[in-house]
């Protein structure tokens, strides 16, 4: 080798070595504070692309959380996710006969095309979500009629007394759009959405990025502080993390749990877990033997070492779940504790069942989800200790949903989140046979659950409602149709330049409050 080439080779080796050493990273987290500053473009990278910005159409969070920034709803979830606050409606009242709700609209609110927001727009918007083909039509199906006695007054008549209406009106699918889509067809409107929210739609390059900009005419003149927000689609979590490290983006949505420790060590970035309504569970098909036997379900519940799973898979970020309603909701029953990991008690429960010596079964997990695959192996190991032989079966996500809907599975993991701050939706969805998916595909049927849910939604008094929800949670804890495993937080890593970023319990970003340090 000639001297010049040796030099080049040496420099190359030195550079690569330095780069490798440098990748260890150092430093710590840090926050910036001070006086809020206006301006700047915030770039947030997310794993998935939004499907549609027409409020009544999508069900994916990627679309929902943008919709919440460009449209207003009558009410809005509070930051803690426990109640609702005024938004386009300044006040609301239930009638004396409890069969209607009157909402008074804010004066001076306008759409981004300059038109005022009126009760006629509200009526039109809710009607769109009442269409039977709309995924969230079940939320508004309780409304029988809408009256618009004045431009700033809308009256919702309900089939029966219905307490969750103020919370229902904070649902993204009930976002207010201009009547008749401002003279456009739904397809045209979807391409150029018009709302009255703090941000307005700017552009959307499918598969790449979606940009929203500050709405200077928003009724709340204090917000937003940012000039614009760009949502980019970055499916790979490693790439999102490296983009944050290189300063290309400011917020990385849902970093992998396994990467949180490394991300925390990155200079100029912080990682925060925000309270979310997500509950992770292990579902059992109660319509199949031997899961129709409560002793079998109890045995499984006691044989699973949730602490170990939380440590190994969620890196300690989850909170061990007791009651099936998340602590984010006011209806959460904090007296219910998770059954302790106790193999002796699990064996004793199994001994009382129809299969005292154990059995062979399957646990279906979505392919491509490494966290759930690891979780399944830990469950497999635990259950093996009490004589339950588990085979792990992988199905791709769409096929797994179909299998669950058809009841064609033994055990499977799942998660649920609430879309409204009232407990009604999730209490039914997860606990009731008639709640939409047969108690999260467990086919658990207990008429007491339906009766209690009906009482809870009709009663105006919060204490009476709470008592009913407490009892529902006790029934699920006793009957164990599924095993709540963890209350999972919403995790974000973001630049230390990002201030006041606090996603709410239902997932809303509340970007209007966010500002960037210069």
């Amino acid at each position, binding site marked *: 080798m000639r001297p010049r080439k040796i030099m080049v080779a040496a420099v190359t080796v030195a550079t690569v070595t330095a780069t490798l050493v440098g990748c260890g990273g150092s430093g710590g987290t840090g926050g910036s504070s001070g006086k809020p500053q206006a301006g700047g473009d915030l770039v947030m990278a997310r794993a998935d692309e939004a499907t549609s910005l027409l409020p009544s159409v999508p*069900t994916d969070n990627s679309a929902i959380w943008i919709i919440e920034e460009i449209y207003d709803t009558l009410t809005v979830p509070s930051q803690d996710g426990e109640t609702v606050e005024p938004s386009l409606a300044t006040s609301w009242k239930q009638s004396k006969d409890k069969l209607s709700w009157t909402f008074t609209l804010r004066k001076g609110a306008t759409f981004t095309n300059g038109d005022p927001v009126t009760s006629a727009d509200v009526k039109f918007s809710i009607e769109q979500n009442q269409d039977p083909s709309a995924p*969230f039509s079940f939320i508004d199906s309780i409304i029988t009629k809408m009256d618009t006695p004045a431009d700033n007054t809308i009256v919702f008549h309900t089939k029966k007394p219905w307490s969750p209406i103020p919370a229902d009106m904070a649902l993204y699918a009930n976002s207010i759009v201009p009547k008749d889509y401002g003279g456009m067809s739904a397809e045209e409107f979807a391409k150029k959405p018009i709302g009255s929210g703090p941000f307005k739609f700017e552009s959307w390059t499918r598969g790449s990025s979606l940009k929203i900009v500050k709405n200077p005419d928003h009724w709340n003149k204090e917000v937003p502080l940012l000039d614009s927000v760009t949502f980019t689609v*970055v499916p790979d979590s490693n790439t999102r993390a490296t983009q944050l490290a*290189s300063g290309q983006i400011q917020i990385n949505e849902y970093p992998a749990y396994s990467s949180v420790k490394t991300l925390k060590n990155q200079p100029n970035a912080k990682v925060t877990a925000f309270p979310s309504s997500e509950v992770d569970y292990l579902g059992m098909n109660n319509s199949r033997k031997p899961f129709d036997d409560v002793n079998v379900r109890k045995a499984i519940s006691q044989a699973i070492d949730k602490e170990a799973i939380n440590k190994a898979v969620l890196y300690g970020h989850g909170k061990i779940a007791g009651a099936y309603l998340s602590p984010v909701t006011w209806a959460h029953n904090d007296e219910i504790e998770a059954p302790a990991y106790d193999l002796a008690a699990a064996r004793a429960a199994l001994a009382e069942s129809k299969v005292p010596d154990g059995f062979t079964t399957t646990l279906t997990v979505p392919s491509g989800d490494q966290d759930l695959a690891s979780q399944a192996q830990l469950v497999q190991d635990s259950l093996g200790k009490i004589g339950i032989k588990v085979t792990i079966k992988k199905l791709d996500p769409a096929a797994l*949903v179909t299998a669950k809907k058809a009841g064609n599975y033994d055990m499977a993991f799942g998660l*649920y989140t609430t879309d409204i701050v009232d407990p009604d939706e999730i209490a039914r969805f997860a606990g009731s046979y008639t709640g939409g998916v047969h108690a999260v595909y467990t086919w658990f049927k207990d008429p007491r659950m339906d009766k209690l849910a009906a009482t809870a939604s009709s009663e105006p008094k919060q204490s009476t409602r709470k008592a009913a929800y407490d009892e529902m949670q006790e029934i699920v804890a006793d009957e164990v149709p599924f095993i709540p495993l963890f209350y999972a937080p919403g995790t974000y890593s973001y630049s230390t330049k990002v201030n006041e970023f606090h996603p709410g319990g239902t997932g809303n970003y509340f970007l209007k409050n966010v500002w960037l340090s210069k």
Partner: protein
Amino acid sequence: MGRWLIRRLLLAIPVVWGVVTISFVLMHLAPGDPAATALGEKASPEAVAALRHLWGLDQSLPEQYWSYLGQIVRGDLGDSLYFRASITSLMVQRLPVTLALIVMSAVIASLISVPLASRSAANVNGPVTQAVRMFNAVIQGAPTFFVGSMLILFLGVRIALFPAGGYPDGVVQRAWALVLPALTIALSIVPLLVRGLRAAMIEALGSEYVSFARSKGLSDTAVNRRYVLRNAGISGVSILGIQVGALASGALVVEQVFAIPGMGSMLMTGILNRDYALVQACTLVFGLLVVVVYLATDLVYARLDPRARLS
């Protein structure tokens, strides 16, 4: 040549029909309902049924197949169930990105392979050959997503020469953003290309026409350019042409890793969401791409090697 071309184009029709039919059957046989997936778990059965009807999924399989074939013949790719947009409009945005990526990958692969192969061929058992062998073994063993992630880490974050993924606005910025993903794909076919080119070059170097050229007093550079590379290039073009499938499937992984909004990432989204129309359309376009490249390879081959007759 005209007759040859027409015959090849006619032969492409059953190939494309086969691709369309196989992708249709496979997608529809796979479990998973696009309407249920699109509407989410909380949608009522009525909502799912209404959407299935709207999308024509409540028709029998032969009816759906027949209507799909009719659409294809009319040049209509249909609407994406997941993106709720016309597939043609999605393709207009995505196809150029993937084509640019594939072309850039092929160019980078050639730029890396030709010098490596010629240095290694000129010095059969020397240190360069050993180094190239080692490089080939390492690169061939490393999965594409790993190579991509490493490139992002070093060239995107540490040295910050290229963006760490993403597809910005502006032609120059976009070309720059495509370098790392194209390099990742290129590296996946470099070992094969180097081996093929090297073997062809060694053969050429030992041939009589090269000895004759040398005896005429031509310089090494001139011999290499005029005789060795030209003859070895024929083999290179063939390998590159055959590798177009690998380039396209490389795009599938690399577009996910680098967040490039091309056909590959769209196809992945389509598969995961059981977006029948989208997957079928992407498969069709990839199928057409392979057919066209094979055709182009044959044409270039004939141009480089007068012995190959197009008949």
